[in-house]
């Protein structure tokens, strides 16, 4: 992707050493984390999920690239603030969300730019138009059509499998607000969904 040569520059070999300790994180999402080195190792594990959240929020892959990079920089700067024993992935989601909210989205809103359609951003180039694929795109479109506040709650809760409490912590809002956003989002999606038979699927991302 061109954006990377622009933003990230070229590869070099610092990466070889930084993986020490990452096996600890791989074993559990709740491993104790203390050092910048550990944050770094954890980050490498969560890059794709952060990127996906960035795409969700911004509807732009390039913006997602930037958001992930900004999140990495900020997380490394603040590694001392990470509470040992808590979820690193949730902490990273919170950082990315705050960067989006405070540093990126505000500009976009001022520009008054329209978002691109979900299927433009998210369709799988060259992939066969399988039934699964079509359904997936439909579901993504439902989510992408939501107002941003509802979208992030739906994504964190139903895609990432966070509890209401955890969503509230990431988004820095009360649990009651999470509930009302999810209810509003579901009411909206329910209305947009003309096929009741899709309700047979599991909603939650992960068993909890």
């Amino acid at each position: 992707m061109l954006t990377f040569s622009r933003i990230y520059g070229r590869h070099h070999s610092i990466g070889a050493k930084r993986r020490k300790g990452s096996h600890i994180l791989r074993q559990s999402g709740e491993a104790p984390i203390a050092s910048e080195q550990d944050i770094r190792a954890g980050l490498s594990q969560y890059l794709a999920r952060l990127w996906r959240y960035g795409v969700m929020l911004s509807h732009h892959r390039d913006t997602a690239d930037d958001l992930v990079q900004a999140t990495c920089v900020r997380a490394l700067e603040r590694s001392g603030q990470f509470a040992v024993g808590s979820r690193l992935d949730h902490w990273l989601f919170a950082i990315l969300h705050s960067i989006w909210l405070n540093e990126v989205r505000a500009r976009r809103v001022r520009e008054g730019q329209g978002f691109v359609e979900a299927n433009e951003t998210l369709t799988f180039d060259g992939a066969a138009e399988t039934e699964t694929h079509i359904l997936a795109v439909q579901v993504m479109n439902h989510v992408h059509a939501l107002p941003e506040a509802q979208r992030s709650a739906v994504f964190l809760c139903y895609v990432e499998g966070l509890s209401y409490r955890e969503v509230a912590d990431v988004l820095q809002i009360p649990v009651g607000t999470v509930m009302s956003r999810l209810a509003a989002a579901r009411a909206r999606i329910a209305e947009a969904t003309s096929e009741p038979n899709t309700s047979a699927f599991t909603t939650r991302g992960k068993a909890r």
Partner: protein
Amino acid sequence: MTKTPTDEMLVAYLDGELEAGGRAEIEIAITTKAEVSARFDALKRSSLPYAESFAPLLERAPQQQMEAMLAAIPSPQTTVRPARSISRRGLIVAALGCLVAGIALDRAFIAVQDLASSRSADEEADWRGEVAEYLALYTPETLRNMTIEESKRTAQLQHASQRLGLQLDPFAMSLGGLEMRRTQVLEYDGKPLGQIMYLDPQHGPVALCIIASTAGSKKMRTEQRSGLNLVYWSSDTHAFVMAARNPIADLHARAEEIRYELADRNQV
């Protein structure tokens, strides 16, 4: 219980977020009240395979590039200057220096892209305002450490020429004595957007943004936005905007030079 459950309660029930007592209340309400049952069934239609649908997006993530990006972030605790060879060969320091600007520039390019489709003068004024707003975030530090080998920069220009359908190489390598620092081709929805950056030792970054546009040829105009001077014009095939802190006369002269060279080398 007599209260009709709210959507919030029904959804929390669906999501398994209610305690046993709350669950029992909802279940009673659903079985005893037709309107609650109907509402519950309606809301249940929103129970879609969210996680499965978004799973393929993970595979679309540019994993390798992101890992390289992460590896390139120096440790905040050890503010050791990167090895010379690295800073020469990479854009790392600059990438960090312009993190926010990088994001902002994306927005600027979206704005530039809009030029291609915008017709009204108001709209064009709008996008220039946006471009200026974001280019204003570029600092000399963004470009200062960016000393890319000449061969690489030539290759960047060639690539941009090819993508934009515009002969830029090699005259755009310098702009009235200012050496080109970096040329990028960004893509938005498959549309190439070119940006050539120069660094004026006195006034800081000078940006030339180019996008294919069939809105028609327009003569050169100048304006001030967000503390930047802007010169903009368009040819039959492309639209251009130059933005910098250079005095308007200086910038105008540079824009004239570029326009002359472009016209000279891109005769139809």
